[in-house]
């Protein structure tokens, strides 16, 4: 009877395509919007994840996310260094600044300051130049996307001058940086230089980056630092999540994306459910005949579920393929880079689409189970 179910489904091309389309539309919207949401959230942690040297980030307990830093007094560094199990600990500066190119273009930038001596926290992926060049006078590293913003259409070149908060800076290296939340350019400088650019405040120490002795896990190290210093210490991943949860809890972003996904689910369910129901109603006499001939309710239900599964499978495949194509096509566009379709979202989309087609077929199944086979004798 599976063969019969499939033939019935394929027979009405228009409805079949309509069903596929409505499911594909829902799958596309769900996977696309959820991906943009998750990628956007992941972006809030870009500059955290780009630091690979350290195990643990230490910060003032009032610092809730990477974009709003409450500086600590400078002795925090010594306190962290004195904690048992800390191999090393270094300063890390984060603030916003204004960068101006000679051509007059200007942008807000994320200014990161790494320890003058060790350069811990400096970028790892250089496109041009060398990290060591940070030690030169007025040296900064600029991320490639930032370079393209400030010098649009110009080839990558070292030695260019920009002004950071009206002070001279020389681009001695161009690096890769993961796209920040607001797609601002990312500027690295020595700690002392970065502090100078921003202007001295009473406290400037945003973070301490710490590494544990061999055998001490980041979680254990964090626990010890917190216990002994009263500061907040988090392994990289946990610090990223804290930032993400801040954005989820304190912005309208998740609500807006959530609404789009909900609408996709509702529209997908209603449209495919209705089309599917009409399809069933139009074949009611045939179904009644099958029932009269001894096809059980269980078998009819399986036929309908098979039809729904086929529609769900093909529709979902189309939908997520469209979403994947979108992200492939946009991966090199500067402000869309880093937007990806995660496997978790892919899996979640499949689960949701399965639920949608199951719900859509529910009405049809109910109708068929209640169908009086005696109607086949009516003219």
């Amino acid at each position, binding site marked *: 009877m599976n*063969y019969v179910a499939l033939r019935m489904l394929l027979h009405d091309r228009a409805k079949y395509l309509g069903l596929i389309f409505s499911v594909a539309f829902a799958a596309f919207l769900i996977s696309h919007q959820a991906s943009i949401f998750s990628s956007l959230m992941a972006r809030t942690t870009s500059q955290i994840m780009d630091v690979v040297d350290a195990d643990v980030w230490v910060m003032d307990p009032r610092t809730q996310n990477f974009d709003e830093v409450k500086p600590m007094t400078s002795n925090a560094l010594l306190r962290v260094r004195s904690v048992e199990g800390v191999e090393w600990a270094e300063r890390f500066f984060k603030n916003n600044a204004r960068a101006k190119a000679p051509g007059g273009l200007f942008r807000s930038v994320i200014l990161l300051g790494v320890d003058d001596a060790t350069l811990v926290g400096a970028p790892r992926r250089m496109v041009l130049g060398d990290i060591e060049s940070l030690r030169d006078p007025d040296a900064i590293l600029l991320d490639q996307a930032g370079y393209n913003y400030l010098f649009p259409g110009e080839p990558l070149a070292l030695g260019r001058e920009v002004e950071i908060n009206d002070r001279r800076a020389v681009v001695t290296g161009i690096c890769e940086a993961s796209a920040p939340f607001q797609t601002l350019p990312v500027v690295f400088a020595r700690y002392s230089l970065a502090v100078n650019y921003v202007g001295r405040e009473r406290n400037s120490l945003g973070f301490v980056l710490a590494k544990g002795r061999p055998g001490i896990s980041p979680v254990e190290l964090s626990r010890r630092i917190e216990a002994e210093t009263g500061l907040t210490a988090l392994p990289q991943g946990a610090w990223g999540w804290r930032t993400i949860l801040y954005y989820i809890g304190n912005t309208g972003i998740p609500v807006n994306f959530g609404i789009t996904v909900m609408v996709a689910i509702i529209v997908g369910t209603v449209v495919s459910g209705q089309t599917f129901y009409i399809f069933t109603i139009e074949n009611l006499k045939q179904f009644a005949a099958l029932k009269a001939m*001894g096809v*059980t309710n269980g078998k009819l239900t399986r036929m309908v579920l098979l039809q729904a599964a086929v529609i769900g499978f093909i529709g979902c495949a189309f939908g997520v393929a469209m979403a994947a194509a979108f992200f492939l096509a946009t991966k090199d566009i500067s402000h869309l880079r880093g937007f990806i379709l995660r496997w978790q979202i892919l899996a979640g989309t499949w689960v949701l689409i399965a639920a949608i087609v199951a719900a859509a077929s529910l009405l049809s199944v109910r109708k068929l189970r209640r169908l009086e*086979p005696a109607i*086949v*004798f*009516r003219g």
Partner: protein
Amino acid sequence: MTAVHCHQLTKEFGTGATRTPVLRGIDLEISTGAISMLVGPSGCGKTTLLSVITGLLNRTSGRVEVLGEDIDTLSPDRQAAFRRRNLGFVFQQYNLLPSLTAAENAAVPLFADGVPYARAVARAREVLGRLEMTHRADARPAELSGGQQQRVAIARALVHDPALLICDEPTAALDAHTGHAVMEMLAAAALSPDRAVLVVTHDNRIFPFAHVITHMEDGRITHSETNHHEPQ
């Protein structure tokens, strides 16, 4: 042999004020090896009787035995299995599946019983052959004339070799000539010593095909007549 036995069978629709008795005490025996026709004015309860005999409707009172089974007492799934194996149906409106070919349509009762595709369709082609439909076995219902569609429906009703063939107005949608031809093929293909054929009809032009004609009126059987010359 008796294939269908009804005793004091009644059927009412609705309850209370809307209660309508439709079958008012039917006593009926249908034998194998013969074509029995059930005739009577419109609304007298012929279709209702067929529905009760085949278990598609529950009776109100009395007894029905089909092939020795009291179909009303079976669970829904057992009832379905009983119909699947023992009953064949021919409807006035053919009720073929438009998406399947003639051979596939005729094979549906075998599909329903889990027979593999190739075997089911091969058997269906064989039965279509007996109804002179071999050349149209791969056509879809929309490409067939009414008479051809009804022949496919007859093949479908016979493909699993049922012990009871039920036909409700099999020629009502056909013109006289085609109806006669279809009935001729039905009689030739369906008649067998261990099969009972029950045909409900208005169409007195096909009466000559009957061995027995049972007359109904207003929910009761009025009389039966046996066809004394050998049916066509």
